[in-house]
C-alpha cells in the first residue's frame, strides 16, 4: 500500500513537472501584425513583409483633381487605367520606376461619353472595354479612342423589361469573348460574343438542395418565398483573367458555415464551361482569414493572378491581401486597416504589374503600388525555380527565405522535397516534418527505412541469432539447475527416509 502511494506520488510529481515545463506559445491575434502567415494549425504567425509600398499614385499630384468613388483598375503593359467613377472618367497613368506620370484622361469621344464607369479592360491590341454602368452598356473603343460597338442589355427572356442592365465588371478572354458581371444578376457572368451578341450565362454555382430550406418553403407564404429566393444563388463581384486565359472570380455572398465546409468557394478559377478548377491542396481552403471574430470572415472584392500562377486576393473586411500559390497554399498575408503607408482604408481593386501589386483605395483616392521586398522576392524565386525544375536555385532561394523567416512552412517543405529528389532521404525527413507534409515525409521515410535495412541487414540477422542462441543456452542452464534441485531433493528424501 505504501509503495503504491509512493508510486502515485512520483507519477503525479512527474506530471506536474511536465505541465509546468511546457511553455505555452504566445498566440498572435489576427489583426496585430502588419504581415503574417498561417501555420498548419491555422495559427497566425508574424512574418516579415513580402511587399512594401514603392509609391502612391495620387490624382492630385498628377494634376487632375481628386478621385471620387474610384472603383476599377486595370494594368496593361506599363499603363494603369483607373476608373474614376464619380468623375465619369478614366485616368491613364504610366507606371514609372520610381514615380507615375499622367498619360491621358479618357472622358468622352465622338458619339460617346462616360457615365459612372466602374471597370475597364484593355486587350493586347489596345482595344478598351469599359463597363459604362451609368449608360447601361459596355463600351468598346479601339486603340485610337473611336467607338467600335457597345454591348447593351441582352435581348433574352431571362432579362425582363423591368430589369436594368448595370455592368459592374468586365473581362475579355483571348478569343475576344466578353464576360460581364452585372448587378442583380445571380446566374453567374454574362457572356457576349466578340461582336457583342448575347451568348448566355457562365459559371453559376449549383444551388445545392437544402432540406431545411425546403421545409421552410413548404410552410411559408408566396410573398415570403419570393423574398427567400433572392438569397440563394451566388453573385460574383469581380473578374480577372490569368496568364492562361482562365477567369478568376470572387464572391462574397455566402454564409460562414458554407465557408467552413468548403462549399462557399469565395475565389474560383473558371474553365470554359464555367466549372471551378481552382486547386486547393493546401492544409486550408482558399478562404482568406482562417479564424475570425464577430466581424465575420474575409470578404473578397478582387483577385489578380500573376504570370507564374501565384494569385492575390483582396479582403475588404480587414483590408488584407492574401497571397496563394498555384497549389492553393497560403503564402502570406499583408496589408491591414490603417492610415499608414502600406495599410488601406477601403481597398476596392487589385491589379498586378509584373510582380508589383496595385491597390486602389477609394476612400483615400490613391492607388498604392507595392513591390516585393527581398523576402518576398526569395519566396517568389523559390517557387518559380521549383516549377521550372531548377532545383539548385530553388533550394538556395528557400534557404534565404528561412534566414528571413524561420517559421515559413513552405520553405521547409520546398527544401525537404528537393532533398528527397536528390536522394538525401535522411536530410529530407526533418524538413518535411516541420512542414507537416505527410505525403512526402512518408515517401522519404520509406526510402530511408529501406536503405537502413539494406545497410544493416547483416547486423540485424546477427542480433537475432545471438538473442536466439542466448535464449536457448539460458533455457538449457535453467533446466539443468531444476534437474539438479530435483536430484538434491530426492536425495534428501532418500536420506531422511533411511
Amino acid at each position, binding site marked *: *500500500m505504501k*509503495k*503504491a*502511494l509512493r*508510486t*502515485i506520488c512520483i*507519477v*503525479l510529481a*512527474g*506530471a506536474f513537472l*511536465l*505541465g509546468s515545463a*511546457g511553455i*505555452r*506559445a504566445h*498566440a498572435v491575434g489576427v489583426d496585430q501584425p502588419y504581415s503574417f502567415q498561417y501555420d*498548419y*494549425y491555422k*495559427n497566425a504567425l508574424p512574418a516579415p513583409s513580402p511587399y512594401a509600398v514603392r509609391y502612391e499614385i495620387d490624382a492630385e499630384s498628377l494634376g487632375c483633381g481628386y478621385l471620387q468613388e474610384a472603383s476599377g483598375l486595370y494594368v496593361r503593359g506599363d499603363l494603369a487605367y483607373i476608373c474614376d467613377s464619380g468623375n465619369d472618367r478614366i485616368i491613364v497613368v504610366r507606371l514609372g520606376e520610381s514615380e507615375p506620370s499622367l498619360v491621358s484622361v479618357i472622358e468622352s469621344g465622338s458619339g460617346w461619353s462616360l457615365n459612372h464607369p466602374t471597370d475597364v479592360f484593355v486587350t493586347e491590341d489596345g482595344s478598351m472595354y469599359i463597363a459604362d454602368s451609368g449608360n447601361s452598356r459596355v463600351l468598346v473603343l479601339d486603340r485610337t479612342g473611336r467607338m467600335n460597338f457597345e454591348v447593351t442589355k441582352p435581348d433574352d427572356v431571362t432579362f425582363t423589361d423591368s430589369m436594368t442592365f448595370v455592368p459592374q465588371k468586365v473581362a475579355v478572354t483571348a478569343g475576344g469573348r466578353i464576360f460581364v458581371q452585372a448587378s442583380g444578376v445571380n446566374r453567374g457572368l454574362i457572356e457576349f460574343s466578340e461582336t457583342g451578341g448575347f451568348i448566355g450565362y457562365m459559371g453559376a454555382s449549383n444551388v445545392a438542395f437544402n432540406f431545411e430550406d425546403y421545409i421552410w418553403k413548404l410552410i411559408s407564404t408566396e410573398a415570403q418565398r419570393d423574398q427567400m429566393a433572392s438569397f440563394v444563388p451566388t453573385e460574383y463581384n469581380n473578374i480577372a483573367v490569368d496568364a492562361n486565359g482562365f477567369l478568376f472570380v470572387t464572391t462574397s455572398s455566402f454564409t460562414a458555415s458554407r465557408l467552413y465546409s468548403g462549399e462557399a468557394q469565395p475565389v474560383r478559377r473558371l474553365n470554359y464551361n464555367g466549372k471551378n478548377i481552382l486547386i486547393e491542396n493546401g492544409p486550408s481552403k482558399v478562404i482568406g482569414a482562417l479564424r475570425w471574430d464577430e466581424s465575420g470572415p474575409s470578404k473578397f472584392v478582387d483577385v489578380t493572378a500573376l504570370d507564374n500562377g501565384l494569385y492575390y486576393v483582396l479582403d475588404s473586411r480587414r483590408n488584407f491581401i492574401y497571397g496563394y500559390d498555384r497549389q492553393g497554399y497560403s503564402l502570406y498575408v499583408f496589408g491591414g486597416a490603417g492610415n499608414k503607408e502600406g495599410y488601406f482604408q477601403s481597398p476596392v481593386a487589385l491589379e498586378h504589374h509584373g510582380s508589383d501589386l496595385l491597390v486602389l483605395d477609394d476612400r483615400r483616392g490613391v492607388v498604392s503600388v507595392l513591390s516585393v521586398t527581398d523576402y518576398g522576392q526569395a519566396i517568389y524565386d523559390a517557387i518559380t525555380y521549383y516549377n521550372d525544375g531548377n532545383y539548385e536555385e530553388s533550394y538556395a532561394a528557400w534557404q534565404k527565405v528561412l534566414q528571413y523567416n524561420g517559421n515559413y512552412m513552405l520553405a521547409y517543405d520546398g527544401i525537404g522535397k528537393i532533398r528527397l529528389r536528390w536522394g538525401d532521404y535522411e536530410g529530407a525527413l526533418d524538413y518535411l*516534418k516541420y512542414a*507537416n507534409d*505527410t*505525403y512526402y*515525409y*512518408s*515517401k522519404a*521515410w*520509406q526510402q530511408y*527505412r529501406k536503405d537502413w535495412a539494406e545497410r544493416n541487414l547483416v547486423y540485424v540477422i546477427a542480433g537475432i541469432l545471438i538473442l536466439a542462441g542466448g535464449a536457448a543456452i539460458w533455457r538449457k542452464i535453467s533446466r539443468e539447475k531444476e534437474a539438479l534441485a530435483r536430484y538434491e531433493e530426492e536425495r534428501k528424501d532418500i536420506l531422511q527416509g533411511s
Partner: protein
Amino acid sequence: MRRREKTSSKAAESGRGAAFPAALRYALYVIVHPLDGFWDLKHEKRGSLPAALTIAALMVLSSLWRKQFTSFLFLRVDWTQINIWLEMAEVVLPLVIFCVSNWSVTTLFDGKGTMKDVFTAVGYSLTPYVLINVPLCLVSNLITSEEGGLYTFFYGLSLLWCAVLVVCAMIQTHEYTLGHTVISLLVTLVFSVIVIVLILVIICLTTDAFSYFWSVGREIVLRTY
C-alpha cells in the same frame, strides 16, 4: 499456479488486497481471462485498489505519451494549444464520472459492487490501452502512411478490448447478466450526462452566490468606512 493460489489465499486471509506487485501483475491475467479474472478480483481479492489506480494513472500518462510520441503521420498535435492539465482532465474526469454514476445506477439496480469494486474493476479494464498504446507509439514512428492501417487497427483494438473488459467487469462485479449489463451501461451514460449538467449548474450557482456575498461584503466595507 501454485504461487497464485498462495497469494490469493494470503490476501483473503488478511482481508486486504494482494501485495502491490502481485496485484499489478494480476492485471495481465485479467485482460486475457476477463470473466474469471474479474470474479477473482472481487471475491478472491487478488487485485487491489492502489494497483487499479496505478493502472488508471498509467493510462493517463500513456494518453499523454501517445500525443507526444506518435508519428505526426497519424496524429497531429498543435502544441501551442495544448494545456497538459486539460489533457489529463479529459481522461480522468470521464473515468471518475463514469465510475461514480455507474455505482449510483447499479446501487438502484440491485448491483452487488461497491464504489471501491467499481473503481478497481474499471481501473483493471484500462490495462490494454496502456499495454498496446505505449509500444504502438514507437512502432508508429517506423511505418509509413501507407501502412497506417496497422496503426488504426491496433489503436482501435486497444479501445475495443477495454470496452469488452468494462462489460465483463460489470457482469462480474454487479453479478448481472449480459443484458442487464448493457442496459445498466446505457443508463450510466445517460446518468453521466446528468451528472455533468449538475456539476455545471452547481459551478454556475456557486459562482453567482459567491459573487453575491462578495458584493454584499464590499458594500458593507464601503459603507462602514
